[in-house]
């Protein structure tokens, strides 16, 4: 049989080079931060160290992430446990509603609660105090717990039924099974999803700024965007990265040799127990409190703001801003998905440890706080501009940067942050498919390129919609990168929320906030209900 030339040329080296280039590219922002942090300490940083501000910011950051982590893990896991193991009236609708606080960006939640506290002062006493670090712990926990809820729910559905059966035959009661089986088996997913909550917490600067919680993200933001101290910001960024590094590796240390999943066991879906009257009362009360604080009160407050300021709608240009936001999302998500498919197909060719290491490197972006990444991206583009484009443009009498503070810089910033979402999904899909299918394609005379086009692409195509949806939710809510890297006069839904809220016009910020919540809510509902029969589920 005659084969096409493209089909048979040895492209292994080409694939390796492309893979390495993508990985290097993904590391550029971090590289520029490290390079910039190696400079001499500025007087400003010396002052921060001398007056022990850095220590305070560091301890505040640790206190914030510990409290947010514990509370969101508690709420998220408890909710996941309830909907997985108990059958009660309206379970399906409550299961969906419990996801919807994810549609509310934390900064929108923070601004909205100002109004809620005004209307319900007793809530301010309970939720805004020293323990909650002036309310920021509460805001992060109540709007970020769905990360833990969603991941735990899906994990408990798949990985637990047989262990519970064994424990029962070994004489264990339900309470004992919860503490001795369910919690330990779910430990990795609780930790991983809580880590996502913590990454989101560290990425934010708007909530800590608004509620005056003096964390590293807060001072980093001030040092860079308000005082222009980029080198000091880089050193603070390194400190923030160190906190994340300790967090990730401490779990690995605690885990030791233990494993938590057993791939050889096929678990059946768990049969839910009917609740007794007392159990139902407890379950409904708990869910009601969470939904009241995380969904109903903020949405009602935003609707109240909107209804009080209807005359503002024409002035806001909300359709233009929404389309602008959607355009950025579409371009960014497309680039992320294409590069994700290519890199996952390349890394799939590596085996064992090499593959694990390369995959970890490719997935690192999400764990880097947005403010740190924004700084790295900014430094990367400004250095490229200064070294290459600025001198060239100057020859033509143009005195401006070509890339810095443009939509290109913004899109690449978002790419660095969210690439790992697409990559991890595609990588896991290829791992689950197994190596044999790709190896058989090669033994049939196809090179890497053709195997990627003919085998990998059709396998990964089914997941593209799912990846796009996750990216959509993350990108539309994203504020830190968008605000820090946006071009002059660029307006997105999130930056408009921040701009109006920052100018004490929370009622006006309600409009773009509601658009974000509505779009995210629709997408989440589609995945939860509409996509039920879809293979992406």
């Amino acid at each position: 049989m005659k084969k096409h030339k493209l089909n048979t040329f040895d492209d292994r080296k080409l694939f390796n080079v492309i893979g390495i280039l993508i990985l290097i590219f993904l590391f550029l922002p971090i590289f520029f931060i490290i390079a910039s942090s190696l400079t001499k300490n500025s007087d400003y940083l010396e002052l921060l160290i001398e007056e022990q501000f850095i220590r305070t910011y560091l301890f505040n950051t640790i206190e914030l992430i510990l409290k947010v982590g514990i509370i969101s893990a508690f709420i998220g896991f408890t909710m996941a446990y309830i909907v997985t193991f108990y059958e009660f009236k309206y379970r399906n609708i409550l299961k969906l509603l419990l996801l919807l606080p994810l549609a509310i960006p934390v900064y929108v939640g923070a601004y909205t609660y100002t109004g809620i506290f005004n209307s319900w002062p007793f809530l301010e006493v309970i939720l805004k105090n020293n323990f909650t670090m002036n309310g920021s712990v509460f805001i992060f926990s109540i709007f970020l717990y769905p990360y833990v809820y969603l991941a735990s729910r899906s994990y408990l559905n798949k990985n637990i039924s047989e262990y519970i059966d064994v424990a029962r035959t070994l004489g264990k009661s339900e309470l004992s099974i919860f503490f001795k089986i369910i919690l330990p088996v779910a430990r990795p997913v609780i930790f991983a999803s809580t880590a996502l909550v913590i990454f989101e917490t560290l990425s934010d600067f708007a909530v800590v700024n608004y509620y005056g919680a003096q964390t590293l993200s807060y001072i980093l933001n001030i040092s860079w965007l308000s005082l222009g101290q980029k080198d000091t910001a880089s050193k603070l960024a390194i400190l923030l990265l160190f906190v994340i590094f300790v967090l990730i590796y401490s779990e690995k240390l605690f885990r030791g040799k233990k494993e938590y999943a057993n791939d050889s066991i096929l678990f059946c879906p768990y049969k839910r127990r009917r609740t007794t009257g007392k159990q139902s009362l407890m379950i409904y009360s708990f869910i009601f409190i969470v939904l009241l604080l995380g969904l109903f009160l903020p949405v009602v407050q935003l609707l109240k703001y909107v209804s009080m300021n209807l005359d503002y709608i024409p002035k806001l240009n909300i359709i233009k801003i929404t389309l602008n936001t959607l355009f950025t999302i579409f371009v960014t998500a497309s680039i992320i998905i294409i590069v994700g498919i290519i890199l996952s197909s390349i890394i799939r060719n590596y085996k064992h440890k090499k593959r694990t290491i390369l995959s970890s490197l490719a997935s690192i972006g999400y764990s880097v706080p947005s403010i740190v990444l924004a700084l790295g991206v900014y430094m990367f583009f400004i250095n490229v501009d200064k070294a290459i484009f600025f001198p060239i443009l100057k020859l033509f009498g143009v005195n401006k940067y070509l890339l810095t503070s443009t939509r290109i810089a913004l899109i690449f910033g978002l790419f660095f942050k969210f690439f790992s979402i697409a990559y991890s999904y595609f990588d896991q899909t290829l791992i689950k498919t197994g190596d044999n299918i790709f190896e058989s394609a090669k033994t049939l005379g196809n090179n890497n390129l053709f195997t990627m086009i003919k085998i990998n692409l059709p396998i990964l195509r089914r997941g593209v919609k799912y990846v796009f949806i996750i990216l959509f939710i993350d990108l539309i809510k994203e504020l830190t990168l968008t605000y820090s890297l946006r071009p002059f006069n660029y307006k997105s839904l999130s930056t408009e929320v921040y701009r109006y809220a920052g100018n004490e016009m929370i009622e006006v910020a309600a409009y773009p906030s509601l658009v974000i919540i509505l779009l995210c809510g629709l997408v989440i509902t589609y995945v939860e209900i509409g996509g039920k029969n879809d293979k992406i589920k």
Partner: protein
Amino acid sequence: MIKLNNISFKYDKELILDNFNLNVKTNEKIALVGMSGSGKSTILRIIAGLEKPQKGKVFIDSKDVGNIPTFQRNIGFLFQNYALFPFLNVKKNIEFGITKLNNQERAEKINNFAKLLGISKLLEKFPHELSGGEKQRVALARTLILEPKIILLDEPFSAIDTKLKNSIRNDLKAIFNNLNITLILVTHDIEDANVFCSRVINLDNSE
């Protein structure tokens, strides 16, 4: 000793068991054989109390156990894939069901059963460090340490290499022959059934 009376069981809308009856005498060792989907494993799960039949009754020692939860039935169950807890080492897996005993009693029992099943050297290892045969022995030790009067074995050799199967089967036969225990084995391999059991019930033929 075990009596299943007119048991009917549906999973979703599929009828798995229809008016099924079974009588097993004390210390009798029986095998249930049949094709996939014939309801073999479901019978074990109903006896253990892991499933509730829609119709019919289960008696153990002439007592209706319909309302007795699994953890109070004192029935040993060896699952098809052994389901060892991956986050506990072998020793902790074995002592999982006897945590109410004091330290000395616990250690004594663990050592005895580890010796009986030839796994004394594996106590500090984690499940992912064991071979298929070793996992089976650990799971069996975990089940037998509770000294159940009844043991239910669900396809115990399905996860074991054919080469190892014969020697493991003979070892287990010797262990069970020394114990006064009622045994129900579910298998699709008639040879397994003949090695272990005095009576074989073929579910494909029984109505």
